[in-house]
């Protein structure tokens, strides 16, 4: 095999791009789960965001309008989940699955005729002096704006959950919904808003995939990234900054795997392509077993239905 194609700087730069869609979806789901709701429909919201963002960007010629449309699309789809689980008290696992099944079909329907279309280009951000720093410049400061938006969202979510009143209310609702209800907080309202935030983030993550990372529309293009994002939330033990570290770690694995395929290593491509899923499973096992589990601290009311008595 040919190691000369390995350029650590290029790899490190590609890592951030590869990690961004997972990071966006994961930070959204993290907020949803901190409010005590398990939404397994991330994959469905991502693929919907991917197609809505793609069609909107192609029609308007503006990738940022595409991103906004994708957020709206993801949030709209997640609202179905919100109504089902919060107002109609449907099972969260089944409703999340329904979202994914529906999203996969809906995106295929919407994306007809868009296969092979080239979306409008998203310009890389020119950060002047920062971009010219040797080594660090190309790795950190020569990306498209969305990479920095995703980092900003992570920092904002961390700050919001830790230091603001509304962030604490969300955590209270997630830890013990009965107590939060008794204190007069609107459990259902908080949760539905959290679900919609999660949907918007997942939609944005999907659109990042179809507009910037790939950039193209193909059916089922999310290929399990939504599920990996769900696992990432567990890996991060529901903490925003850890989710970012996890996403970049994972992005590194993705990039390495693709580069090994390209370098013509003597392992068939199909087996290399399995590695992200296998590594995700391995990480889940490590995180959920034994001593690690004690430090996990999942939200107390995660996945439990809430029905106000009386």
């Amino acid at each position, binding site marked *: 095999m040919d190691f000369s194609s390995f350029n650590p700087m290029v790899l490190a730069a590609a890592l951030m791009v590869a990690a961004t869609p997972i990071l966006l979806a994961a930070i959204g789901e993290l907020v949803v789960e901190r409010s005590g709701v398990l939404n397994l429909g991330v994959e469905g919201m991502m693929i919907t965001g991917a197609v809505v963002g793609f069609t909107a960007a192609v029609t308007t010629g503006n990738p940022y309008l595409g991103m906004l449309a994708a957020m709206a699309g993801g949030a709209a789809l997640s609202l179905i989940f919100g109504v*089902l689980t919060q107002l109609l008290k449907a099972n969260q696992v089944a*409703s999340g699955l329904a979202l994914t099944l529906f999203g996969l079909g809906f995106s295929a329907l919407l994306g007809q005729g868009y296969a092979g279309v080239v979306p409008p280009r998203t310009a890389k951000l020119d950060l002047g002096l920062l971009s010219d720093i040797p080594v660090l410049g190309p790795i950190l400061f020569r990306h498209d704006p969305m990479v920095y938006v995703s980092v900003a969202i992570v920092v904002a979510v961390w700050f919001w959950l830790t230091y603001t009143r509304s962030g604490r209310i969300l955590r209270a609702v997630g830890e013990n919904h009965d107590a939060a209800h008794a204190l007069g907080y609107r459990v259902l309202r908080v949760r539905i808003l959290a679900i919609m935030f999660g949907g918007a983030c997942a939609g944005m993550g999907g659109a990042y995939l179809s507009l910037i990372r790939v950039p193209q529309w193909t059916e089922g293009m999310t290929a399990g990234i939504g599920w990996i994002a*769900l696992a990432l939330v567990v890996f991060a033990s529901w903490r925003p900054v850890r989710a970012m570290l996890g996403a970049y770690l994972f992005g590194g694995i993705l990039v390495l795997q693709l580069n090994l395929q390209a370098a013509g290593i003597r392992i068939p491509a199909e087996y290399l392509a399995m590695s992200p*899923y*296998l590594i995700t499973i391995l990480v*889940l096992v490590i995180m*959920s077993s034994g001593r690690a589990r004690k430090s996990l601290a999942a939200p107390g009311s995660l996945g439990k239905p809430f029905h106000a008595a009386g």
Partner: protein
Amino acid sequence: MLRLDKRPQPSKRWNWATPFLAVLLTMIAGGFLFMALGKDPFIAIKLIFWDPLFNPQVADYSRPQLLVKAGPLILIAVGLSVGFRAGIWNIGAEGQYIIGALCGAAVALAFWPAEGWYIFPLMVLAGAFGGWAWAMIPAILKTRFNTNEILVSLLLVYVAEKILAAMSVGLMRNPDGAGFPGSRNIAQYPAAANNELIADTGMHWGVVAAFIAVIFTYIMLHRHILGFQVQLAGQAPRAAKFAGVAPARLVVLCLGFSGAMAGLAGMFEVSGPARLVSIDFNAYYGFTAIIVAFLGRLHPVGIALAGLLMALTYIGGELAQFTLGLPSAAIQVFQGMLLFFLLAVDVLSNYRIRLKTHEAA
């Protein structure tokens, strides 16, 4: 405003009525969807639900297809329903289906071109074993390391798809196939073929297995202690613990059973209707079966009926694709909507809906 009052027990009447209500609502919403796609909704609905069975021009072809499509759906869904009742979520049936098919096909290809009565039964065993073994991965990770079985079973679907791709271009590729991907045609290998048992009915061994699974599961759920434990674990996990239900044993049993059923379905499919191992022989039965399980209210007999209905939407969808040019994804959306409506109308069996009157206060 409306108010929900929890019923002390789910309403029996609504329990029966909700699947029908959900199908009706899906037809209405689907009608609007077809209208949005520029098709006449009434013609499209009739094409999907009526013509495959009763239109003499197409019924000869489509009636047998009903059993061909319903067989694997029912087989997988019955397996899944037991776990779903106990709160054990195997959502990776698609992966178990693929691995079962690969194991069954491996036996057939290993014996090719030998003749012998024992080859097909061995394939059946291998198929069930493959699905069971693939489901044991999330089961053991769950019982040993407390790892979430939902995520693991689903992630393994992607792994199974990659193995399938590797097999159909690598190890299992037809050596006489001029380099094209895909295995030998198993359906044309008499000792291994899962052909129609009665001509022009669509009845093959997979359909027989599905009916046996329905009866077996019915007896297990209603007449055996295991069925009681499954129901108890799902409805009252704490009570189940006091009643001596070992959660780990239940996880292994439920995941193993559903995996074996999915593996069987895959094996019958690859040696019959699908004919050979190819990159995309799997038709997402493993995911559609989840909808079938819920539509059948997790009851074996309900699932048999739900499987037939879902098979009808597949066949009718194909028909609408040919005659109306309805996109194939539309039928996927239709099936997804069905699950939404099912989950939504479930509120009627669990809650009483009252008008909230404003009290003076």
